[in-house]
């Protein structure tokens, strides 16, 4: 195998990794907010369900969770698993797992908000929806951005866990080529890919933080 084909295959893997990364963010960021609402709900049942959910998602390995999502339907309901399901299982597993982490980050941010902001909003007649999305959430986002950046960087590296379900992302392909061709080059390429990807994430998040620095 020459270098060009190698890089071509790796590029294919790269695209899959990026797909996992983007879809995880799209699904888990809003889902995390919903779980956070549950976790902060006045309803005891809802609050406890959310707490247990977060505890399990944070307390067990993501790799195990991916396997449960993939094999679960077969062992629980004897549903035959189509091979194409592995990619969907990866997306579901990642979204469920990362939502738990994001929920806790949101909660930390929301709880750090001074009650005076809610009281001022109430006196000015804003309803609960307006108060949250217009007054509270924009300020929460600014506060949680550094922790969010951390989590997003971890996600970039975590995408390699999709190899347990044989999804052809960057790391899976690198490993396949490395063992079949007995060469280190794919691992070096993979390392560079993850590093550059995260550098990009850091630069973008840094810019967002700067943009939000127009107020204190």
């Amino acid at each position, binding site marked *: 195998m020459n270098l060009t084909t190698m890089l071509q295959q790796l590029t294919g893997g790269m695209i899959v990794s990026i797909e996992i990364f983007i879809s995880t963010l799209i699904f888990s960021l809003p889902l995390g907010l919903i779980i956070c609402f549950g976790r902060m709900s006045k309803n005891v049942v809802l609050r406890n369900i959310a707490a247990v959910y977060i505890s399990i998602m944070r307390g067990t390995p993501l790799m195990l969770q991916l396997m449960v999502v993939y094999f679960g339907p077969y062992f629980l309901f004897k549903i035959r698993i189509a091979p194409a399901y592995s990619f969907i299982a990866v997306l579901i597993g990642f979204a469920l797992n990362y939502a738990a982490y994001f929920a806790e980050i949101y909660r930390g941010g929301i709880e750090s908000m001074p009650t005076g902001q809610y009281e001022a909003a109430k006196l000015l*007649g804003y309803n609960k929806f307006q108060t949250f999305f217009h007054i509270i959430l924009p300020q929460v986002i600014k506060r949680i951005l550094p922790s969010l950046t951390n989590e997003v960087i971890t996600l970039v590296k975590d995408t390699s866990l999709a190899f347990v379900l044989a999804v052809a992302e960057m790391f899976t392909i690198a490993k396949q080529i490395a063992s079949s061709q007995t060469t280190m080059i794919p691992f070096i390429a993979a390392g560079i890919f993850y590093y550059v990807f995260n550098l990009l994430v850091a630069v973008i998040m840094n810019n967002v933080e700067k943009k939000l620095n127009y107020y*204190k």
Partner: protein
Amino acid sequence: MKLLEMKHIKKQFENLEVLKDISLTVEQGEVLAIIGPSGSGKSTLLRCATMLETIDDGELLYLGEKAAFSENGHAVYVKNTELKRMQGNYGLVFQNFNLFPHFSVMKNIIDSPLRVQKREKKEVLKHARELLKKMGLEEKEDAYPYQLSGGQQQRVSIARALAMNPKILFFDEPTSALDPELTGEILKVIKNLAAEHMTMVIVTHEMNFARNVADHIIFMDQGVIAQQGTPDELFNSNNPRMREFLGKFDS
């Protein structure tokens, strides 16, 4: 016309009785000052009057309309939609301003008239600029709260409350979070509002100010109204608690 009536208000936190049977009335155009030592219940009274706290028992009326009434020894509030409407009758200026830090000065003032009251933008902007001028902050409409001094922030928060066209304006120790040299500018603004016959209820530690600006003063002590009357009546009263309290300010 009676804009605010509180009758036999009781409020308890855990086992601590903070308000014990408080009654008061605020007439249109009246300036009421509430004074008293820390822990006397004056801030709680204000928070009950603005519905930031609920009362345990008693009656609460705005413009003669019942917001809460007493039933079998417990206060019952009317429907939320009704309360929300009545809330439009008053504004509150907080001790620590509580401006929205992510909004510019202008947006702090116009956002709720536009979003909540759904007023016309042109009219709201004109109103806001008038208010800013009145507060001496014409130059600051694009500034963000963190760029302003405490006194300026408090003036913005007064403008923000006034932009809603409230019938009563409540002040919760409006100068307590300010450096002494900045309290004067806020007191001046409130005095000007009094001259325009704005109805106001002011919880304050500024005795001279209360004396000068208020039509009526309530002296609270240990959850009850220990003494009330015109400034002259109060400052010349022989009530021992009142004398002791005023004595602390003479030194």
